[in-house]
């Protein structure tokens, strides 16, 4: 009964999405306010219905209802409850349902938090999101119904893919999908604005917090995925340039470009058509990512079961959504007009540089991901290009990007002077060079790329510090506290996010140049030494988990003869799927990880053991977290909260924007 209820809710949701897609859109076109007013309640209904379907599926998992095909395929009685719930998105059908849940959630959120926007715009935005929901609902109902019954019911389920039985798996997909789908908001804002022909600074201001919110989720989602791969796949790597990883990284790069481009459009009214294009691209890449993962055109570690019918459907959907929005862009964008002029040396130019570099980086990833596919399409076979390509491409792109990261925020809008910038940043540059060389010398053996990495890190930190000092220095009778209060939150967020990049690069650089990996055959009592750490193998024993049997190695690590830490890596055999899995044991530290995993048994009591020392590896994810925190601080800037803004005039640090944006927002606010 419960699965049928869920299935029914999805059909009702399909109807609701159709209403949402048509009525407000037509209403906005002909100026019927009652039709436009349908948008908000329908958005809420749509979300409720999809959430109901989702809960029904989760309940089927919780109840071990193996008469549902999807549950029988992805769960098992022995699977602990929290993994049974996470198993809802462990397979294809459920992850699309999760996608849909997120999409309708964002739709409802836009409906809820858009009181200050003009009604016509809101109607169009929600209608566009309604069409997106319609497409995905149709996809679920036609090709991937998670509620399909299995007759006769299975006695026992086939179990969740062991790789996915991990705490990281419980939160990684929801986070990532929140980010992916969150970009649909910026997309819908862009399409709605193109339809209405109104693209101005206030449009950018309204889009910014939504884009930043999606970006935060995307950042955390990618970091979690990377962390999961690090300890679950047992290879000790944290990024594999795998097509599925690339699929999440591409929207991130474009979303990052979009955040910066929106800043220009909001502050200066420039880059309008470019910003709109980025908003369309960012979500298009999310869709493309979904296509690549779900259609099975690319082989990958994530290797989801693929079905050509599904691939064809997503492709058709892709063509309709992206094709239509790009056609709309080609039709409307030429009339958008240029923004204010700016000099060659100005903050605008630097942000343009940032945009170009990020988009080129995204293009490089896209090429590396699709080149194998293109070869295949041309009948040249299936291959993978792998890290040799990506590593070569990324360093030259990242270097100028990081350089601009230091200069850009210091440059004035419209017209900046190079000698002035050089003066202000000379201490930062000097400090960065000296510090990088000093650390490289103390550390030793870093190599040219390592020194370059350190240089980037110190450059970012020093330039952010310089920027901060300039903004806090007592000036014109205002003291430190007063000056600090004047720094907008968005700016603080930016600084935090940039420091996050520095933390991230620190991790990448030091892991790349300082990690030690060793595979050794170890018998009971054997030791191997890496730097100050002595690893002693104490043997392997059999242990049983709820749904697996495992061999557990016991390895003691001691540093300089201190009391040893015990690490217990496992090699598991999951009983239902007969899949074996390596579970690494990691001793996490602030400046290094000790990583141990079991290879093969090699006769008697000896095993091949992989032992890694990875300096500063956790800084990679720490950096992502700092970036996300920066995003959070920026997104909660109070000028985005319309209701308080009207009463507090002049909080903006840029009078031009205040003058530019306010008149167009006032009529909108009157609707509340």
């Amino acid at each position, binding site marked *: 009964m419960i699965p049928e209820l869920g299935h029914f809710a999805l059909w009702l949701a399909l109807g609701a999405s159709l209403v949402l897609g048509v009525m407000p859109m037509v209403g906005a076109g002909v100026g019927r306010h009652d039709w436009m007013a349908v948008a908000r309640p329908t958005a809420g209904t749509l979300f409720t219905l999809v959430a109901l379907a989702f809960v029904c599926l989760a309940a089927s998992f919780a109840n071990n209802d193996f008469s549902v095909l999807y549950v029988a395929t992805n769960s098992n009685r022995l699977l602990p409850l929290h993994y049974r719930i996470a198993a809802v998105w462990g397979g294809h059908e459920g992850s699309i349902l999760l996608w849909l849940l997120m999409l309708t959630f964002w739709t409802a959120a836009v409906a809820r938090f858009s009181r200050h926007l003009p009604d016509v715009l809101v109607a169009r935005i929600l209608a566009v999101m309604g069409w997106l929901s319609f497409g995905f609902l149709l996809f679920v109902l036609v090709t991937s119904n998670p509620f399909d019954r299995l007759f006769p019911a299975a006695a026992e389920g086939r179990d969740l893919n062991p790789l996915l039985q991990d705490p990281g798996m419980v939160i990684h997909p929801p986070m990532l999908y929140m980010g992916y789908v969150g970009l649909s908001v910026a997309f819908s804002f862009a399409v709605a604005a193109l339809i209405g022909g109104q693209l101005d600074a206030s449009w950018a201001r309204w889009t910014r917090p939504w884009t930043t919110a999606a970006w935060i989720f995307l950042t955390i989602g990618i970091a979690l995925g990377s962390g999961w791969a690090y300890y679950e796949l047992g290879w000790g790597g944290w990024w594999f340039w795998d097509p599925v990883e690339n699929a999440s990284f591409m929207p991130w790069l474009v979303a990052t470009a979009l955040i910066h481009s929106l800043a220009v459009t909001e502050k200066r009214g420039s880059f309008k058509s470019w910003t709109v294009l980025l908003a369309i691209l960012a979500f298009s890449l999310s869709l493309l990512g979904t296509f690549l993962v779900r259609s099975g055109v690319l082989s990958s*570690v994530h290797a989801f079961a693929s079905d050509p019918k599904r691939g064809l459907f997503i492709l058709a959907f892709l063509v309709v959504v992206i094709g239509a929005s*790009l056609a709309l862009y080609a039709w409307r964008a030429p009339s958008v007009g240029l923004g204010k002029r700016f000099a060659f040396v100005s903050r605008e130019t630097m942000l343009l540089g940032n945009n170009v570099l990020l988009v080129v980086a995204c293009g490089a990833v896209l090429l590396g991901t699709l080149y194998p596919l293109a070869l295949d399409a041309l*009948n040249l*076979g299936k*291959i*993978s290009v792998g890290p040799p390509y990506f590593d070569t491409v990324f360093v030259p792109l990242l270097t100028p990007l990081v350089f601009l990261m230091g200069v850009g925020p210091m440059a004035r809008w419209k017209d900046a002077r190079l000698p002035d910038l050089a003066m202000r940043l000379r201490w930062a540059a000097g400090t960065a060079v000296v510090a990088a060389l000093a650390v490289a010398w103390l550390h030793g053996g870093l190599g040219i790329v390592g020194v370059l990495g350190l240089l980037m890190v110190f450059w970012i930190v020093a330039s952010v510090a310089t920027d901060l000092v300039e903004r806090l220095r007592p000036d014109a009778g205002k003291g430190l506290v007063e000056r600090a209060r004047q720094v907008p939150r968005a700016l603080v967020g930016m600084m935090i996010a940039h420091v996050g990049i520095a933390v991230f690069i620190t991790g990448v650089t030091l892991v790349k140049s300082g990690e030690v990996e060793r595979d050794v055959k170890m018998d009971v009592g054997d030791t191997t030494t890496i730097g100050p750490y002595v690893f002693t193998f104490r043997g392997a024993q059999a242990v049983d988990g709820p749904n697996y049997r495992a061999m557990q190695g016991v390895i003691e690590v001691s540093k300089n003869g201190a009391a040893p830490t015990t690490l217990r890596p496992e090699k598991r055999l999951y009983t239902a799927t007969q899949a074996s899995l390596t579970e690494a044991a990691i001793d996490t530290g602030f400046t290094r990880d000790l990583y141990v995993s079991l*290879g093969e048994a090699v006769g008697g009591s000896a095993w091949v053991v992989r032992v890694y020392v990875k300096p500063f590896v956790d800084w990679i994810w720490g950096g992502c977290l700092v970036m996300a925190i920066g995003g959070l601080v920026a997104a909660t800037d109070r000028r985005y909260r319309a209701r308080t803004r009207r009463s507090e005039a002049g909080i903006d640090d840029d009078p031009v924007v205040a003058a530019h944006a306010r008149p167009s927002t006032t009529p909108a606010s009157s609707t509340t």
Partner: protein
Amino acid sequence: MKRARFLVPLGIFVALAIVLAIGLNRDPREVPSPLIGKPAPAFALPTLGNPERAIATADLKGKVWMLNVWASWCVACREEHPLLVAFAKRGTVPIYGLNYKDQRDDGIAWLAQRGDPYRASLFDADGRVGIDFGVYGVPETFIIDKTGTIRFKHIGPLTPEVLTTVIEPLVRKLDV
């Protein structure tokens, strides 16, 4: 004409969509290679496990052998590997690996963890030999006969079908 540049994104997307549509209907399959029927390129490379020991083309003359191009960074190889390990156990044909553009430690670790189906793996760090063989990417597989002539090439991961319907009969025919 000013409008035309706004059509560029749409144009790029249409081209991309066509590639994706074709890609959707593809399977890994063998392709005619200009190298088939030609002598295998000459090489002399150190082995992965032992840098002191080198293997050259001449050492392999007089027997039918299989060359499998792989790398630890290659995702498709992970998929192919268990099949290769099982195939090696059947002893149909000696398999030599070409460890392509890889780090020595990574390659050794990869084999230690997943099993080693190769008589030996040639360590081709800069990919020079791979280029001579016309490698598009990884994995690829070649069958070379007693005279050192390439008789078959497969691009992408091997499948059980290719092994049983193509490679095994071919090897039996060449081995007489």
